[in-house]
């Protein structure tokens, strides 16, 4: 694939050079100045300074200094934007060849109400006018975050989201959930768009290796992103139609600004340190061997885990002329991993071009290529998983080795490698037309191809001793077309209206194919067809989905904002028969802060107050072809052997989530405290359940529209500027959300399990734990029976005299984050962020496994805990309960807090940067996953390594022995030339 990459980046570079060649110099002037905080006088490094309508812009550097060159002579509007401050505009007139100094003081703003967003509305609209809540992450927040992928970036930064890592192994993604589990089929991962093009968001892109799955989220990088907009389902997502019930994440990449080429170089070095909090190690598991001196008590810490070196280098160029701007970047990265065979590498490039065709129209193009490689270990439920086998005491048995050291060597013979290549492009045309009309169109493709190889060499005793090879390839292509036209009329002072009509369509094609060989005669063979037994298989899926939408935004007296819209959707989930759905939305927002009476009363104390409320519907189509009755066949003894596959359901239709939400934004105390609050009530009607057929039919499960699922909760985002002095600024922030999830109605469907031990039953949360629990069957005080039951906490509260005994599920009912940012002097910024989740239970499969070897891990870690003994009905004590009859003992409180990020950034003095001929420079240090607190001492409750394969509903909360995301230390330097 190297030639492809070379040609791609070559093309980008060539276009960039063309753009540079077009640089004009005649009849221009320069604006320079500094941007500081109005109250404290502190320099506002990072302020975006732009001249709207000209593509001209820059970012304020050290001491808040900025320079805008090659500006057309005449009267210009200059805009200053930085998070936490009021967007401010100044008009200035410059003559040709003149340099004007424009120093500016910006006032703090707790809420960025004038920020423009495009997600969920037909046309770019300021947040002030929205009747829904849209979260926005800006360039500064994105570039300063010590993360690699989008899912990691979202952790702790978006109110109303729960983002949980699956595992610490490379290539895995996080489970992202907005506003609870709205559906019991399919993934809860929001749909993701990059520059208007829908991209692969699958959480299961390769064969399972024991539970942990490779995810397409892992290679959605945060490099070169300008802005991310997030809607959490509901009315803000209505215009996205049938796939948006789980929310929409819209990513916009950097496009470059006119000016001389600006080169950014970044070097980052660091180490990943394993988190050993949940590892018992050899001293407990192989106690007798440790006592005999055969094995160090900390064998795993010493000889299995390691501190892994990480290095990353990035180079970017951006700039351009009035006519064409460009941004091209590349990045290479290499990490050793914190356990054997977890090495990973990354090469990525991204480029964009924006060409101004006329004063009011432009073409945009962006493209990217990323190549990731990584090694993996088996995990979770796989008997070839070294870590679990060592931690549950099965390593010797499974390998046949005589020492733990030898067993470890045998386990590490297995080699799992994955290669992911991802290419995406987006081409867009925007015509601002006139004040009356506008038009935009986007066409793009995301293509992701990955190959996984699982090689077990001859002599790998946990597997087939004669060796085996599995090779798997997945090819995913998604194409998007999107066009919208808008009319702005009337545009009087008191009445402004924008009406948009748009059409959108996408097609996803997925092909999976695997070949497997078992039994090699000779070592060294890496072709599966050399093996004694060769098998192959494939699955394919195609779906087209498209829709037309209408959206009307009406602003009255600049304070009352009305919104109405509708999306008509069509999809081919049913094969040739295209089905239609209609999703309406309505909303109203009232900007009380603009009422004179409120201003009179509030003064400086209440600077913003806006109320909003909205209703909207979103949907979810069933997976393709599940309306049909189908038969599948398998090869059996040289014959094609058919059996029943999908039972068929001619009444199948999309499920619809109706959301009512209301909230307010308010800023207090001279705009130093901001609050964004939303209450939502979402009901999924006609909920699609995979209803198990009665076994008597001989048929499996059929998806049916039988249920109703409710999600209710609140989202709160609070920020406060506590100190704002020349030498010290201190901001704190918090997000908090609750989710009350309930299966309200199951229609004809009997209760069923969505995953082993996770139950869907009326009146309980989706996937409530339903596990075998010892009980006293005859009232003699002894545990002599076992039965399936929910895990309830009846002490939560009292409702009309009855105890509230909701069953616990695996998904958090409360979560949030805390953040703080301190500016010391003019150069140093310290920040920290932690996130947490609570109100759920998690399952510890590793401890289940270890009971087979008589190891009761919970007794080792939880003081005073004793695993239950089974009594006979005659009251005679017997052996400890079989794990299968006492799964309740492996379900723990899931509450956790993680100190997710600590960063320090230092603006390098100009003279020092100047020696390197740099315009400015930043040194930074960061720690990610610095510290964990969890209520249970046995497993990292954030993780969900045991995911169902195939990318279906993944509720998480269940893991075997696995590694937590590492404690990552990084130091780096970034210079702009």
């Amino acid at each position, binding site marked *: 694939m190297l030639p492809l990459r070379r040609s791609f980046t070559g093309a980008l570079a060539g276009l960039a050079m063309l753009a540079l060649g077009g640089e004009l110099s005649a009849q221009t002037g320069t604006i320079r100045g500094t941007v500081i905080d109005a109250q404290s006088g502190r320099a506002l490094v990072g302020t975006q300074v732009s001249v709207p309508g000209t593509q001209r812009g820059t970012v304020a550097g050290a001491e808040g200094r900025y320079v805008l060159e090659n500006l057309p002579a005449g009267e210009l509007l200059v805009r200053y934007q930085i998070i936490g401050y009021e967007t401010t505009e100044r008009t200035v007139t410059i003559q040709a060849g003149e340099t004007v100094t424009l120093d500016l003081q910006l006032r703090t703003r707790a809420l960025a109400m004038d920020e423009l967003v495009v997600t969920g509305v037909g046309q770019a609209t300021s947040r002030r006018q929205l009747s829904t809540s849209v979260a926005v992450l800006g360039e500064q927040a994105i570039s300063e975050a010590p993360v690699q992928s989008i899912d990691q970036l979202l952790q702790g930064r978006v109110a109303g989201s729960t983002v949980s890592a699956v595992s610490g192994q490379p290539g895995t993604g996080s489970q992202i959930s907005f506003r609870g589990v709205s559906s019991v089929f399919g993934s809860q991962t929001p749909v993701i768009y990059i520059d208007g093009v829908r991209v692969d968001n699958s959480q299961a892109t390769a064969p399972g290796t024991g539970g942990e799955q490779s995810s397409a989220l892992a290679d959605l990088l945060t490099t070169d992103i300008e802005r991310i907009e997030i809607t959490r389902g509901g009315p803000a997502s209505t215009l996205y139609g049938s796939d948006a019930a789980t929310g929409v994440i819209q990513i916009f990449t950097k496009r470059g600004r006119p000016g001389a080429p600006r080169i950014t170089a970044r070097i980052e070095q660091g180490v990943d340190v394993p988190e050993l909090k949940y590892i018992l190690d050899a001293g407990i598991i192989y106690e007798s061997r440790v006592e005999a001196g055969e094995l160090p008590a900390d064998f795993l810490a010493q000889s299995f885990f390691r501190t892994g070196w990480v290095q990353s280098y990035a180079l970017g160029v951006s700039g351009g002329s009035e006519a064409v701007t460009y941004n091209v970047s590349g990045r290479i990265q290499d990490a050793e991993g914190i356990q054997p065979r977890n090495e990973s590498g990354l090469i990525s490039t991204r480029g964009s071009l924006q060409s101004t065709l006329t004063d009011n129209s432009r073409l945009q193009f962006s493209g990217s290529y990323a190549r990731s490689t990584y090694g993996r270990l088996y995990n979770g439920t796989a008997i070839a998983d070294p870590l679990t086998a060592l931690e549950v005491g099965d390593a010797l*048995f499974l390998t046949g080795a005589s020492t733990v050291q030898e067993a470890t060597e045998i386990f590490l013979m297995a080699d799992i490698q994955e290669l992911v290549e991802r290419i995406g492009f987006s081409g867009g045309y925007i*015509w601002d037309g006139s004040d009356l009309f506008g038009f935009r169109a986007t066409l793009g493709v995301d293509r992701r191809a990955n190959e996984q190889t699982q090689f077990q060499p001859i002599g790998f005793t946990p597997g087939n001793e004669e060796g085996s090879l599995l090779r798997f390839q997945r090819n995913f292509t998604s*194409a998007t077309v999107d066009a919208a036209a808008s009319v702005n009329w009337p545009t009087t002072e008191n009445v402004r209206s924008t009406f948009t009509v748009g059409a959108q369509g996408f097609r996803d094609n997925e092909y999976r194919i695997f070949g497997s060989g078992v039994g090699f005669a000779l070592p060294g063979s890496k072709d599966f067809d050399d093996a004694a037994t060769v098998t192959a298989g494939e699955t394919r899926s195609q779906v*087209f989905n498209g829709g037309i939408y209408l959206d009307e935004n009406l602003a009255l007296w600049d304070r009352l904002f009305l919104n109405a819209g509708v999306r008509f959707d069509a999809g081919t989930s049913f094969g040739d028969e295209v089905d239609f759905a209609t999703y309406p939305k309505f909303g109203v927002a009232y900007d009380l802060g603009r009422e004179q009476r409120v201003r009179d009363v509030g003064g400086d104390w209440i600077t913003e107050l806006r109320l909003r409320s909205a209703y909207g519907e979103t949907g979810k189509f069933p997976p393709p072809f599940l309306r049909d009755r*189908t038969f599948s066949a398998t090869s059996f003894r040289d014959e094609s052997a058919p059996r029943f596959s999908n039972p068929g359901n001619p009444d199948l239709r999309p499920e619809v989530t109706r959301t009512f939400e209301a909230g307010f934004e308010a800023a207090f105390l001279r705009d130093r405290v901001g609050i964004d609050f939303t209450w939502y009530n979402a009901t999924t009607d006609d909920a699609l359940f995979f209803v*198990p057929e009665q076994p*008597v039919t001989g048929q499996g499960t059929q998806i049916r529209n039988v249920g109703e699922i409710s999600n209710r909760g609140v989202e709160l985002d609070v920020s406060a500027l506590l100190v704002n002095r020349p030498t010290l600024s201190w901001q704190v922030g918090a997000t908090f959300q609750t989710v009350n999830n309930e299966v309200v109605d199951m229609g004809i469907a009997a209760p069923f399990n969505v995953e082993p031990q996770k139950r869907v039953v009326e009146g309980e949360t989706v996937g409530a734990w339903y596990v075998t629990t010892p009980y006293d069957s005859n009232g003699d005080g002894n545990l002599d029976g076992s039965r399936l039951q929910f895990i309830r906490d009846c002490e939560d509260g009292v409702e009309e005299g009855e105890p509230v005994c909701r069953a616990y599920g695996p998904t958090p009912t409360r979560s949030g984050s805390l953040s703080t940012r301190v500016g010391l002097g003019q150069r140093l910024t310290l920040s920290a962020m932690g996130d947490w989740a609570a109100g759920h239970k998690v399952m510890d499969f590793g401890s289940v496994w270890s009971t087979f070897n008589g190891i009761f891990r919970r007794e080792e870690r939880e003081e005073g805990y004793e695993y239950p003994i089974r009594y006979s009905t005659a009251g005679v004590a017997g052996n400890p309960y079989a794990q*299968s009859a006492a799964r309740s003992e492996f379900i723990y409180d899931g509450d956790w807090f993680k100190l997710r990020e600590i960063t320090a950034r230092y603006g390098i003095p100009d003279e020092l940067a100047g020696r390197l001929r740099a315009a400015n420079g930043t040194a930074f240090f960061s720690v990610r996953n610095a510290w964990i607190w969890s209520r249970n001492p046995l497993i990292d409750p954030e993780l969900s390594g045991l995911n169902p394969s195939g990318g279906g509903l993944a509720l998480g909360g269940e893991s075997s022995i696995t590694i937590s995301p590492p404690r990552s230390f990084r130091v780096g330097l970034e210079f702009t030339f």
Partner: protein
Amino acid sequence: MRNHAHRRLLGLTFALFLGSGAVGCDFLDPTNVENPLTTADDLAQATEPTRALLPGLRAQFARAINGTIVLTEVVSDNYAIHGTGLDSEYDNPRAIVPNIVNATGTATGLYWNLQELRALATFVLDDIVPGDATATPDQLAEVRYYRGMAYLMLAENFTAAPLETDGTPVAALDLVSLALADFEASLAAGGAGDFTLRTRAAQARTHRAAGNGSQAAQAAQQALATEPNFVFLQEYDATSISNAAYVFTTDRALREMQPLPRLDFLDPKYTSLSAAVPVAKAEEMHLILAEVALAAGSLDEARGHVANAIEIALTRPRPSFNDTDQRQNANLTLRPRNAEILIRADPESPFRAGLVLTRPGSVPVPTISGTSLRADSVRALTGEEATWHAFHLARQEIHFLEGRRMSDLGIRLPMMLREIEANPNISMGGPGTQVVVPAYIPQDNQMDNFSPASPYDDNDQLTTTEVTMQVDMNRVLARERVNAFN
């Protein structure tokens, strides 16, 4: 100029969008999606649908045999669980609840796979055959045979099972009648040859399940008259539907199933993923005749039939196999694994040699039948209980790992939890929903126990050569006079 260029570009953009939909860009054509599976419409296009679906029934029968063997052998006294791959509640019959019979897979999903076999056969008979002019009598005979076997095996292992959506459970005896009707129809439809004999043997087994002594004996004799040493095997396929018992009893990746020490010499029985499983064999016919004679009080005749069965069993192949199994308990201590070990079936029994083989090492594998009994010794037996005991022991050994022992012990499983929950006419506690364990079955997992639990010390050296089983279930069955024809 600029405006001109702009208008042209605008036009081109519109053309592109219109063109992408209209000019057959198949990737953006909403109707151009393909279901990769066979739909009901596709099936209707099949030229010989009955012939096309028969391999599916063969495969499903293989799955049903798989599920029946693994699950019921563990529930019985033949095997104990010593690893992570199987639910340890199976080893304690009274602890079995519908939830743990809830599997749909091939290893332990016997209820599921038997119902699927029955439903698929019914689909072929009711929905396909009437419209298929190409269906032959032989094909119909085969379909009827599989459905009959599904009814029979449901009857052997469950007390009742529904037969249609929302149906009330049909009692085992009625299932047996349905099996007999299908076998009759199969014989009436089928041509001559192997399949007739196979069905005849199934008839004998079904009449036994129904308690029809004379008809069972008649069918058994008819089968034996056709071919005195017959055996029918269900073949497997290493690459798709493989022998499930192999994984748990030979490969033993997770140490799962360990045989009762007094049956050690019969294990392993299936030594490859494609190893075939006996479904019907001449030995069984002789044992049915013996059981009929026992019920009639004809002890001499019964001993003669048992001896006949033993003689055939001893003529079956016994290829050697290098067994690497360590014979470990869950706690990694060793189970009996040396040939010098003597076993007695319970504290009242004499010690016997030859029941345990030295492992790891090369061992003979009775792939069809094996037994520790000798025909002459059985013929020479005196006394009623000794005869009943020999009969039960012969049946246990000869049908070892064929999924028959649990039913012979009188244990019946509850139907799948999903069936109970999804069918409005079935409620927990009703017919077929609870495990049935006869009072003579000992508590907990005592059928599997022996002492000492490990006759080895920490250095894997033998500390005793005498091992005593806690309970001899054949003695229990003999004393209880457990007999299908009583």
